């Protein structure tokens, strides 16, 4: 697997400014990272040592082909595999119910879950406490029929770190996967999510709240591929950006030819709290069937003047009225997240964040 990933990543090379999937990402900076030099310079040796890893994956029923390395176009997804990250592999048995944490200890990490039929799993991604120049984590989820998975994180991050987070999800009939992410990081982060709705009525949600300040930047690249009938998918992003923080959201939905009853939505709401904060949104819809409902929306603004006035006219001073509105805007992200553990965790973190 490592050999295939190494060959593929070198074939792709470091993305440049003109690579559409890395639109707005400061790709010029990538060349400066020592740990990425092996991509462009094939003379730099990379030891292939993943036999034990492949064997372990195989024991849990995974084949190299499951990771679709040959189709992968994102170097951040290939990076942990190419550098031989040891895969953490877990199979949650049919009907089981588990709560767990994912905590990467290394710069490059790979986590693989198979969630068998009807199992229910809640996973919190904890951040690596060690500050590094660059880190990359990849999570692969194979979700079987009627299984439910929640994946959530409440990241603070490290100021000078470049972080890649890759999530690849394959969903069978009737399965449900919802990701909830609170990002308060000071760093440069790229999150790449691809979800394949392969069975009828599989349900996917991606909700993210970015509360960024300083020079923090979040680059989200999300693709939801509807490959079966009657699948709902939701992308709901809220951004609170101050100072020179920025978010670039590239969200795409593909409704395949065999997907009647597709119901997808993509909504990005941003409040810019400073003149220099930036938001770029790029929604993409590729629709190959007539019977689909696909919507996308994007709003950008400052705090609503009428709402501020209303709160002030009831005696609340401007500073507290602004805080109340910001908090309400932020908390809305968890309202429709369907799983309690993530919902409660984010509610707690947000209550601490907005402690008055």
């Amino acid at each position, binding site marked *: 697997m490592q050999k295939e990933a190494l060959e593929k990543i070198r074939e792709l090379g470091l993305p440049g400014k003109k690579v559409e999937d890395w639109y707005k990402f400061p790709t010029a900076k990538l060349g400066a990272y020592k740990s990425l030099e092996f991509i462009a310079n094939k003379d730099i040796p990379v030891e292939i040592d993943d036999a034990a890893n492949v064997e372990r994956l195989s024991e849990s029923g995974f084949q190299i082909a499951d990771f679709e390395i040959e189709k992968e176009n994102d170097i951040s997804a290939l990076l942990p595999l190419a550098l031989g990250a040891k895969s953490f592999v877990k199979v949650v048995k049919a009907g089981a119910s588990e709560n767990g944490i994912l905590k990467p200890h290394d710069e490059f990490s790979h986590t693989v879950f198979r969630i068998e039929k009807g199992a229910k799993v809640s996973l919190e991604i904890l951040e690596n406490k060690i500050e590094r120049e660059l880190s990359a984590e990849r999570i692969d989820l194979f979700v079987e029929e009627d299984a439910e998975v929640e994946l959530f994180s409440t990241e603070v991050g490290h100021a000078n770190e470049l972080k890649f987070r890759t999530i690849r999800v394959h969903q069978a009939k009737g399965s449900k996967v919802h990701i909830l992410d609170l990002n308060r990081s000071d760093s440069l982060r790229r999150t790449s999510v691809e979800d394949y709705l392969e069975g009828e009525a599989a349900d996917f949600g991606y909700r993210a709240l970015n509360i960024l300040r300083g020079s923090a930047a979040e680059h989200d690249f999300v693709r939801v591929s509807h490959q079966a009938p009657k699948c709902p998918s939701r992308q709901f992003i809220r951004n609170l950006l101050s100072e020179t923080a920025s978010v670039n959201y590239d969200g795409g939905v593909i409704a395949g030819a065999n997907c009647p009853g597709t119901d997808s939505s993509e909504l990005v709401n941003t409040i810019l709290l400073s003149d220099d904060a930036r938001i770029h949104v790029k929604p993409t819809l590729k629709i190959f069937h007539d019977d689909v409902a696909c919507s996308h929306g994007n709003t950008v603004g400052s705090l609503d003047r009428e709402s501020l*006035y*209303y*709160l*002030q006219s009831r005696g609340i001073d401007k500073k*507290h009225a602004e805080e*109340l509105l910001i908090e*309400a805007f932020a908390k809305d992200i968890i309202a429709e997240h369907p799983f309690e553990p993530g919902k409660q965790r984010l509610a707690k973190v947000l209550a601490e964040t907005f402690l008055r």
Partner: protein
Amino acid sequence: MLSIKNLKASLLDGTQILKGINLEVKPGEIHAIMGINGSGKSTLAKVISGHPAYQVDEGSVELDGKNLLDLEPNERANEGFFASTQYPIEIPGVPNVEFLRMALDSKRAYLKEGPISDEEFNKRLNEAMELLEMDDRYRTRGLNDGFSGGEKKRNEILQMAMLLPKYSFLDETDSGLDIDALRIVSNGINHLHSQNRAVILVTHYQRILDMVKPDFVHVLMHGKILLSGGPDLALKLEKEGYDWIEGA
């Protein structure tokens, strides 16, 4: 006393809406302001409460001797001026009760009183909600979030009941209310009105004035109060309209 003298105000683009309002409201009085659409009734409430879409060109608004126009909107509210808007805004994510608590504590802090105790707050809230026949759904929902027109108006009176302002300017509180809701809201206003608390009621219809009896009725047209009288004036307006008023 609330004393409005020669109040002139414009939209930020310079369009003048209020062209010299003069009005005095004493504690305990009920005033009704009537007039055709677009005459400046809602603007008057917004200008006094400090809406950012308007600028004051001239005049003063004094509440017990303090010029409200020199104060921030929250300070005007905490001095005792309450403006209920015609279309209360929805603010999802701000729980109704949390908002009421914050507004009340803001007023108490402004008046240099300590925060209200949980017990006292809940007692007042329960009493006010009972008065306005409001159920528990109002507690947990976001501020006016998904409320019907009538529910929003009732929620405005709930705020009035919790904040107990000296002067309440209720802008078309009766519009959009069914018969039962009008009775409930009117009961609430009558209950909250007292020797110390005055009400200024903007309305187009006599029906609310049958329940909330005004001491004075004013006709506001073209940005000015053109005529003032007693309760009979509202009856005459209901019957004859506004065409007979000089300057209309």
